[in-house]
């Protein structure tokens, strides 16, 4: 379990990256950490790992003060995708990584097994199993530096799962990763989260993936915790605009007095944007179909991506406004 209370981190240059964050993360929980760039996600993660010492407040992870961890247990697996990606783009040669670039993947796995005192046989078995699950079996004899970005990220995750960490931290594991690799990573993380033995903290801008892996999200802005709860509630309280796309044989129908935000009419096609918290899709669609010869209709709900984009942009963190009723329950 991870507990934070009024956690604060101010750097030497006076920047306060984490500002009064209070948060509980239960053992085996999967939590998504979101926020615009510079919101303090990485600093929070580093505080949890004990890479930074807090400058104020209270933090305990697995019963210990993280910055005074005795390098034994709990085991922390860490994948810092953004820096690995950077190292690919800018050709730094090295990024933060569990793996050594100039060793083959299988050697890396052996070495990690050794560092974490895994029995050789178990290490081999797990390596093979992870390689199969992450579709890496054909790349075990590649030097890690030769792997493509998607393979590399999968390899990093395999390296972390090898020693069954109690805490797995994934900082942007999807950046620059192609769709199939994303899918594989997502699948394995979902299974891991469902098994409930590993606490997973995921920071990402890929909301679709986040939605699939983490039931709970924590939203940071300028170091402050501005939302902590289920993704569903976040969606409900911050509905973006839904859209209704309608094609008709004759003249498109008139939406009348409904509270429409935008209205686009092109030939026989009508596109409406409306706030689904003010008016139900059923109501508006029903009324439109009634008055016209409709040949096709498509209703789209806002994606979590659009919602978060909207929140970042507007800085609107009044979460109680729309879902007061739900909160009271």
């Amino acid at each position, binding site marked *: 379990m991870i507990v934070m209370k009024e956690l604060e981190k101010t750097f030497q240059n006076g920047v306060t990256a984490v500002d009064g964050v209070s948060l509980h993360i239960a053992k085996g929980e999967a939590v998504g950490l979101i926020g615009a760039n510079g919101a303090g996600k990485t600093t929070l993660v580093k505080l949890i790992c004990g*890479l*930074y010492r807090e400058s104020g407040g209270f933090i305990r992870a697995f019963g210990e003060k993280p910055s005074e961890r005795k390098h034994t247990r709990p085991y*922390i697996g*860490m994948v810092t995708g953004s*820096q690995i990606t950077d190292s690919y783009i800018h050709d730094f040669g*090295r990024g*933060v990584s569990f793996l050594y670039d100039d060793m*083959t993947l299988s050697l890396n796995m052996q070495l990690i097994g*050794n560092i974490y005192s895994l029995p050789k046989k178990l290490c081999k078995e797990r390596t093979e199993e992870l390689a199969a699950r992450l579709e890496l079996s054909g790349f075990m004899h590649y030097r890690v530096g030769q792997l493509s970005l998607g393979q590399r990220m999968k390899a990093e995750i395999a390296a972390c799962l090898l020693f069954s960490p109690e805490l797995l931290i994934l900082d942007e594991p999807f950046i620059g990763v192609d769709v199939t690799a994303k899918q594989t990573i997502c699948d394995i993380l979902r299974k891991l989260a469902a098994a409930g033995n590993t606490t997973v903290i995921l920071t990402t801008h890929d909301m679709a993936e986040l939605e699939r892996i983490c039931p709970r999200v924590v939203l940071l802005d300028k170091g402050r915790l501005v939302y902590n709860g289920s993704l569903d509630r976040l969606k409900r309280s911050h509905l973006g605009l839904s859209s209704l796309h309608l094609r008709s044989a004759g003249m498109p129908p008139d939406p009348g007095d409904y509270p429409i935000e935008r209205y686009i009419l092109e030939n026989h096609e009508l596109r409406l944007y409306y706030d689904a918290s003010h008016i139900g899709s059923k109501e508006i669609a029903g009324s439109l179909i009634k008055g016209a010869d409709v040949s096709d209709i498509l209703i789209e709900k806002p994606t979590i991506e659009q919602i978060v984009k909207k929140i970042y942009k507007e800085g609107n963190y009044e979460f109680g406004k729309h879902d007061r009723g739900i909160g009271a329950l």
Partner: protein
Amino acid sequence: MRDILSLFFAYAKSGLKSRFQYKVDAIVVIFAVFLREAGGIIAMYLALQKFGTVNGWSIDELLFLFSLIFITYGIFIVFFMALRDFPDWIKHGDFDRVMVRPRGVLTQLVLCGADWLAAFGHGTLGLLLLLVSANRVGIEWDVKTVLYYVMCVAGGVLIQGAVFLTFSAITFYVLETGSLKEIFYWNMRKFAIYPLSIYNKFIQAILLIVVPFAFVNYFPAQFFLRKPDMAQYPGWLMYITPAVGVAMYLLAYAFWRFSLRFYKSTGN
């Protein structure tokens, strides 16, 4: 301890394997390192053909003095390369990886950072110089002298390790320590290839106290060679290289521990 040894062998095995994946490349690099370092010796050798001796030290004796530098560096680079390149570790974030693993930070840095090619380059040169000079300078090799020689080499490795550990700890406060290293290690090393006694008091003081290269090669060599220029120093200096190595290393380690705490609380 057995645990750490097996870890060392795991690192060494994989390090060697990856370094020698391209065998020709590896051999060319080793040879290049060898030639680069040997060039300086050849130049000195030719100059000495003319002068004969330097402050009473013959060519062979100087080669013996030389050999200690290369042998200790060859071993040093097997254990302390990560400290040599430490600013890069911090800059690229590799240091974070080391910090979350269930082993001591320094243990991991020391174990994983072998520059095998440099080690072979410097090591072979050192051994070659030792083989060439050892018989000709009249050292009587018995159990006692061999033992003390080994201890001196270990001390010399620790002294250089301590110097780099200190530089690495300074990296926690100021990120760029390249020029410090240039001045206090590489330049001092150039001074150390000649007998300490030829320098003025200022440089001698630096080589004795600040970056004590004198204990890496000059005083150990004096133990074996007993040259007359030793008269200007207290005799016991010849016997303390292993102790200086251990003491300096412990001191540097304490400073490193302190700085690591500082790094965690400030965050670079």
